[in-house]
């Protein structure tokens, strides 16, 4: 993985010193509240319902075991012993004291980590495919491009005070696992008809209050021009993005109000001015970063192992886990292994200090010392030899991370909701828990098959409800928690926004409502091979709506 050189290290160290001084001045009354707020947000620090919350960047989702151990140390030392993986490849700590945050940032810097630009109206953490570098359907490894772009965006002097936050995702595979179409800029690395590498550029996607699928701004952008094109988009946005209304300030609104064609024209005009500037990537720049992502030393004989087949035959629970939690690897004899953070009785995405320590040890033992976090709030050991799958499963089961539910109904994407977040209208974790109990039976879940249930506690949409096959959105009605339901959303290649079923349902009825929807699907599907999403797209809203509202009491 990428290793900081002296420059990268110096920058994060200097950032810690800067923030330490800003915090000192704030506590001494020398820095106005609202200005400190904007400065601390750019270091990942929110002030939440009960305590400050610190959001730490995990660029493109990749962590070394050393970094994972440091996250465990931080959870144990400064927090209540756990952290929360977000839907944007970050980890959040919910209980640090404001005064301790400079020390936490210094600890992070000591393992080449930071919280720079994880919030605030600036360019946020770059997200990517959690199977980068190992996926069979990948054109090239997207992570070097993410790292190059991360450096470009870090403390960018022109773009630190944008109209609103700005998120960029990069994907290089046939199947989009990075939800690129719902980002401010979505980058697909592609090859053109001449065999040259480059990018298809999407702009103006986003979730939140006004969910929009990004529009294609350019079919093919040459490989060397990634930064100049992004700079052109950002410059147009910084100049023209709305600042009069926070709800209309994202680039998606500018693209929509300007019109995609006109917006593309403005970007192209700006880009023409800077495409041959210093921003042009050289092969040497690319190679320098690419060498950090060279393949680990795979065992050429890994596929010869026979113990795996024997373990599969002997242990049905292990076999069931391999069916859901393994993904194909491009190297024979290896698998990418998902550790599920969606266990019964645990808030989706939560992981405690002991688990973090254990994950670090397992990464060292079985996956070349690295682990990835996914935007679906799980972990991936990306390079596990088949002989190690059984011992890894046993170890994960021992720490509660072997729930065999990846991609199933209980693999819920969920924001912290009312339990932690000061923006939220309604509980999300408690609802996730109820759904988990309702559908805990794995045979039933397997029968339901691949489905994405996404839940947000408010319309800011951190739980990506708009792109859930089933989306649940918490709303506040006169102090009571109600839930709006959408069907048919997707963040993959066929990206779409969910359609609202109708009136929202009450807290008491939401689990029943999900069950009604699932029963409708089971009754309507052609066969077991037709997924919930495909079925919904074929039969439409009517049967789902009928059954949903026949049984639960909707809000009048």
């Amino acid at each position: 993985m990428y290793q900081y050189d002296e420059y990268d290290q110096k920058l994060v160290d200097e950032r810690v010193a800067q923030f330490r001084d800003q915090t000192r001045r704030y506590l001494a009354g020398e820095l106005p509240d609202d200005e400190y707020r904007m400065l601390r947000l750019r270091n990942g620090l929110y002030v939440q319902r009960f305590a400050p919350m610190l959001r730490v960047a995990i660029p493109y989702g990749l962590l070394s075991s050393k970094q994972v151990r440091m996250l465990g140390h931080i959870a144990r030392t400064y927090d209540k012993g756990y952290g929360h993986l977000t839907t944007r490849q970050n980890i959040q700590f919910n209980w640090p004291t404001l005064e301790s945050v400079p020390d936490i940032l210094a600890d992070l810097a000591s393992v080449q980590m930071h919280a720079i630009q994880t919030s605030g109206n600036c360019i946020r953490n770059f997200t990517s495919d959690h199977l980068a570098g190992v996926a069979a359907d990948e054109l090239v490894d997207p992570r070097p491009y993410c790292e190059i772009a991360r450096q470009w965006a870090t403390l960018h002097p022109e773009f630190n005070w944008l109209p609103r936050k700005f998120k960029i995702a990069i994907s290089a595979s046939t199947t989009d696992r990075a939800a690129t179409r719902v980002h401010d800029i979505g980058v697909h690395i592609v090859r053109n008809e001449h065999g040259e590498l480059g990018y298809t550029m999407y702009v103006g996607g986003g979730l939140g209050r006004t969910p929009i699928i990004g529009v294609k701004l350019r079919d093919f952008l040459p490989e060397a021009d990634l930064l100049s094109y992004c700079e052109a988009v950002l410059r147009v946005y910084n100049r023209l993005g709305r600042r009069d209304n926070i709800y209309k300030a994202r680039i998606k609104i500018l693209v929509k109000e300007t019109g995609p064609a006109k917006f593309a024209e403005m970007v192209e005009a700006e880009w023409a001015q800077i495409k041959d500037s210093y921003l042009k990537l050289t092969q040497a720049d690319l190679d320098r970063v690419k060498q950090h992502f060279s393949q680990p030393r795979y065992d050429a004989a890994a596929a010869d192992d026979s113990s795996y087949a024997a373990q599969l035959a002997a242990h049905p629970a292990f076999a069931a886990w391999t069916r859901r939690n393994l993904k194909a690897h491009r190297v024979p004899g290896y698998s990418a292994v998902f550790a599920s953070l969606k266990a019964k009785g645990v808030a989706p995405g939560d992981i405690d200090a002991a688990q973090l320590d254990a994950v670090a040890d397992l990464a060292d033992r079985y996956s070349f010392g690295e682990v990835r976090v996914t935007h679906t709030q799980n972990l991936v050991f990306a390079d596990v030899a088949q002989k190690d799958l059984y011992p890894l499963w046993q170890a994960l089961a021992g720490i509660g991370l072997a729930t065999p539910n990846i991609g199933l109904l209980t693999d819920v994407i969920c924001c912290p909701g009312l339990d932690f977040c000061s923006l939220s209208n309604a509980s999300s974790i408690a609802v996730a828990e109820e759904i988990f109990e309702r559908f805990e039976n794995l045979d039933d879940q397997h029968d339901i098959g691949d489905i994405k249930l996404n839940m947000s506690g408010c319309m800011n949409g951190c739980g990506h409800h708009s792109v859930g096959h089933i989306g649940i959105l918490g709303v506040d009605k006169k102090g009571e928690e109600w839930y709006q339901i959408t069907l048919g959303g997707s963040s993959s290649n066929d990206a779409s926004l969910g359609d609202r079923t109708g009136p929202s349902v009450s807290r008491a009825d939401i689990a029943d409502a999900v069950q009604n929807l699932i029963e409708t699907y089971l009754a309507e599907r052609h066969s077991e091979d037709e997924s919930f999403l495909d079925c919904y797209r074929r039969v439409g809203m009517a049967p789902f709506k009928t059954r949903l509202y026949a049984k639960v009491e909707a809000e009048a």
Partner: protein
Amino acid sequence: MSTILLRNLRVEADDYTLLADDAALPATGKLIVSYSRWQAEREALLASGRVIGVKIPNTIDIAGVLPEIADRPLIALDFPAFPDGRAYSQARLLAERFAYKGELRATGKAVVRDQIGFMVRCGFTSFELREGQDPAACLAAIHEFSVPYQQAADHAQPVFLRRRA
């Protein structure tokens, strides 16, 4: 109350006076006028023979107004609110694309130690500090980061060029 001006990396007396749109030209001294006054009275102001800078609102497209202002000895760009970063883009265009060599001045609510480093990088050469700012601390803040990732309007050598060397 006089504003503290940083220029050429030191505290200097402000030799310009910002002239209200309805005020008559004073007898002496360098002046800054609003862009709208510059547009309306350009001929007369030029004929006065005075040294006149122009203050540009952050909503103006710099490329569009360049012919009218390129020969001014001073251009002031405004930060009307702490988080409003539009003038950063205006400054880079002036300093980098259009090679403006006059005094490029930052004014307004963001001209504080916590943003001045970005301003220097984007090409500003003088700073009307917001009231209450400690000029020594502002000067020190310019050097808070020793190496930038990006090339910009200042002449700091960015990381990627150092790595190529």
